[in-house]
């Protein structure tokens, strides 16, 4: 029996077993050849997303298109994306599918007001439409949009940018040379944006490759797509160089890297003279093109997929150390500092060597490390580094209590603490989700939905405590004796009403999901006043808002506890940068 026949038999067996053997299906989707045929995909894809084929949503109603804020954009995008339909399809046939595509997108958006359409979403939806048909596509896309794609569907692209920031540390694992090159070339990571948010549907011309990748992604962690970006990038040196060149990397750097790679690949060939040539004159697109003309047209997808799979297992997102996410990874971006309420009560350096480089708004290139920082640099420093913003928050907290006293920590005075600070998603990008026993909580970098997926809470959620800080912000989650940090991210519009916290997803892909939408509290009394939760079960959402009292317990086994009392500030150890040094 050929391996394909064997695989098909295994898949069929897994489908027939009761309950369905998901692990085998996942394995099949990832391993060589993926799910092999569209017929198999129609059966297996829904299982991978836990969609019940016997309980599909109805066909979209006729009025689905009326008064939807995204209707125009969806219409514009779908009507002009002919490329995504099989070549040779009759125009009238395609037109029918295009109209279905519009309906599916609007139907999902309408039932999930928390989701926002983005250009490129249609590239994903069309893939499902073509494989599983309209009604199943609705069910699958809805599930997917609330899980794997959730971060891309926020009102803003902040979470998406945040996920793109994973690219560099992953790339460093794959190819340090390329990683360093990219940092120097300051190309940023935006070139991978369309790969990520369309799951490559937008950039691959061969539909078979798209399908193969979808097998893989549907069976994998939501962040897999970004791992694949790193592998794809490296796996095809020439392609990546081409992209770099087109992304505006200084061409002499591109060439130098090309040469280094070429040298390694083919040691016999002498390329040194070319390097000299390169050094002697600025290189241009033409010579880069010459080198790049060797780009193979067809990438070895099976290899790339298995490489990605191994890479993910070897370096799961939680193991990418924070220091990897230095800001130099996004140097081209003009980073806007969002005002994020920061609410640490304790300081614990998770990354004492934090170092950052960034252009400030007055166009100065700042490069600071914790050790170097002088008192006068502090406010700038806080805006720039990953960890010490915790300290600022501390000061902030302190100052909000003693209004008349200038906040001070060690010898350094914090210059401005008007807003509790300054952290754009790029900054507080990485975090260590493990929380140790003696640290009640560490001020959290925001976790995106995809990252929370990775938390893998053990078992059912039966007891959940929300920890609110003195400023009334949800900062931690106490679950079965363990603390979990939560996303703290202000959503300006939503926040006005409820001084609270942005939605947080806790739990794995399977229901129940619980989103904490808001949590209002009195700053002074350190008590939480109300909390609202949106629960998603079986794809349906229910919103609850309730005062925080014993009634909460009855509702969903949640208790909202007072935060632990803050320790006196003096007992916190300030980092070296904040202690006065004699020199």
């Amino acid at each position, binding site marked *: 029996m050929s391996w394909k026949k064997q695989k098909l038999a295994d898949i069929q067996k897994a489908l027939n077993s009761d309950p369905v053997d998901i692990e085998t299906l996942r394995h099949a989707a990832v391993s060589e050849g993926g799910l092999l045929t569209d017929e198999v995909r129609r059966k297996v894809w829904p299982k991978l997303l836990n969609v019940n084929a016997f309980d599909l949503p109805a066909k979209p109603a006729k009025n689905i298109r009326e008064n939807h804020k995204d209707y125009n*954009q969806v219409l*514009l*995008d779908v009507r*002009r*994306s*002919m*490329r*995504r339909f099989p070549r040779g399809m009759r125009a009238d046939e395609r037109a029918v599918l295009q109209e279905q595509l519009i309906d599916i997108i609007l139907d999902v958006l309408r039932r999930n007001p928390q989701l*926002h359409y*983005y*250009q*490129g979403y249609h*590239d994903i939806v069309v893939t499902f439409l073509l494989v599983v048909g309209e009604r199943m596509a609705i069910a699958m896309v809805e599930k997917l949009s609330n899980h794997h794609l959730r971060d891309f569907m926020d*009102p*803003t*692209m*902040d979470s998406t*940018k945040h996920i793109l920031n994973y690219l560099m540390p992953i790339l460093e694992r794959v190819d340090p040379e390329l990683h360093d090159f990219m940092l120097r070339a300051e190309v*940023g990571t*935006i*070139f991978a*944006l*369309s790969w990520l*948010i*369309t799951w490559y549907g*937008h950039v691959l011309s061969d539909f078979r490759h798209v399908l193969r990748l979808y097998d893989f992604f549907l069976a994998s962690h939501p962040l897999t797509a970004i791992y694949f970006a790193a592998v794809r990038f490296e796996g095809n040196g020439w392609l990546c160089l081409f992209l770099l060149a*087109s*992304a*505006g990397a200084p061409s*002499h750097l591109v060439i130098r890297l090309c040469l280094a790679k070429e040298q390694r690949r083919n040691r016999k060939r002498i390329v040194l003279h070319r390097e000299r*040539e390169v050094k*002697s*004159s*600025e290189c*241009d*697109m*033409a*010579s880069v093109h010459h080198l790049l003309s060797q780009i193979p047209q067809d990438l070895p997808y099976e290899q790339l997929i298995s490489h990605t799979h191994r890479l993910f297992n070897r370096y799961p997102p939680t193991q990418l150390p924070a220091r990897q996410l230095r800001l130099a990874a996004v140097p*081209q*971006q*003009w*980073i*806007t500092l969002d005002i994020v309420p920061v609410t640490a009560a304790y300081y614990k350096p998770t990354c004492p060597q934090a170092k950052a480089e960034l*252009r400030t708004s007055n*166009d100065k*290139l700042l490069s600071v490390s914790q050790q170097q920082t002088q008192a006068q640099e502090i406010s700038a420093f806080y805006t720039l580094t990953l960890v010490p913003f915790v300290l600022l928050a501390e000061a902030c907290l302190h100052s909000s209590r003693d209004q008349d006293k200038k906040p001070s920590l060690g010898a350094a005075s914090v210059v401005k603490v008007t807003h509790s600070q300054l952290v754009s998603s790029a900054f507080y990008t990485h975090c260590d989700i493990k929380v140790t026993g003696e640290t009640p909580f560490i001020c959290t970098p925001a976790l995106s939905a995809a990252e929370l997926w990775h938390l893998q809470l053990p078992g059912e959620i039966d007891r959940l405590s929300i920890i609110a800080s003195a400023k009334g912000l949800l900062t931690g989650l106490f679950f079965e004796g363990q603390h979990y940090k939560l996303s703290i991210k202000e959503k300006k519009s939503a926040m006005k009403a409820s001084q609270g916290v942005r939605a947080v997803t806790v739990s794995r892909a399977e229901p129940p999901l619980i989103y904490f939408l808001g949590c209002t509290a009195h700053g002074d009394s350190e008590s939480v006043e109300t909390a609202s939760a949106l629960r998603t079960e079986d794809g349906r959402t229910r919103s609850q808002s309730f005062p925080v009292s014993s009634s909460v317990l009855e509702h969903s086994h949640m208790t909202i506890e007072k935060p632990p009392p803050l320790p006196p500030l003096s007992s916190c150890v300030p980092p070296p940068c904040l202690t006065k040094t004699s020199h």
Partner: protein
Amino acid sequence: MDILWQYQFRIILLGDSTVGKSSLLKRFTDGVYSDVADPTVGVDFYARSLDIEPGVKIKLQLWDTAGQERFRSITTSYYRNSVGGLLVFDLTNRKSFEHVREWHREVSEHILPHHMVYILVGHKSDLTRERKVLRDEAEQLAAELGVRYVETSAKCNSNVERAFELLARDIYELMKMGEISARDGWDGVKSGLTAKVLYPAEEEREREKSCNC
């Protein structure tokens, strides 16, 4: 090795969704037009060089941006490093014309204290029957913003070349006058390493001499 360009200008295309930014660029850089035009997801890149005067080749680095509002936070990071911008609207889409002012304001404010050289482009001029914006109105807006105005059609290849050339020429002239110059940490304008500089050192000295006497 031949010098392929003396200067490089980075130029960005701005405007509402579906006004035809990508089509304009494809026509200009590849000389092709296709009715099939996928929306741009994020930011795309194109390049082409122009002979601006005999012996002076300018390489244009062209950045195409997604029109959808939510991508704005990403595209804004490309404003600062651009020396020129095409403000594109669709002649058959009144709203896209009305939004030009917003685009102009947003970019100008974003890059302060620096400036960008703009050109206003009324696109899809081949669709004469569906035209919703009069040439007069567009010219008036251009005058208000202090920029040039060109009507183009990627489909019929009308004025596409001219639009980019006018913009490049304006930038080039400003550069010659010293209003724009390459500066560290800014990628809007770059000069080729072995390029002939506008005023070579000797010429500069001679000019100084002539001023002194």
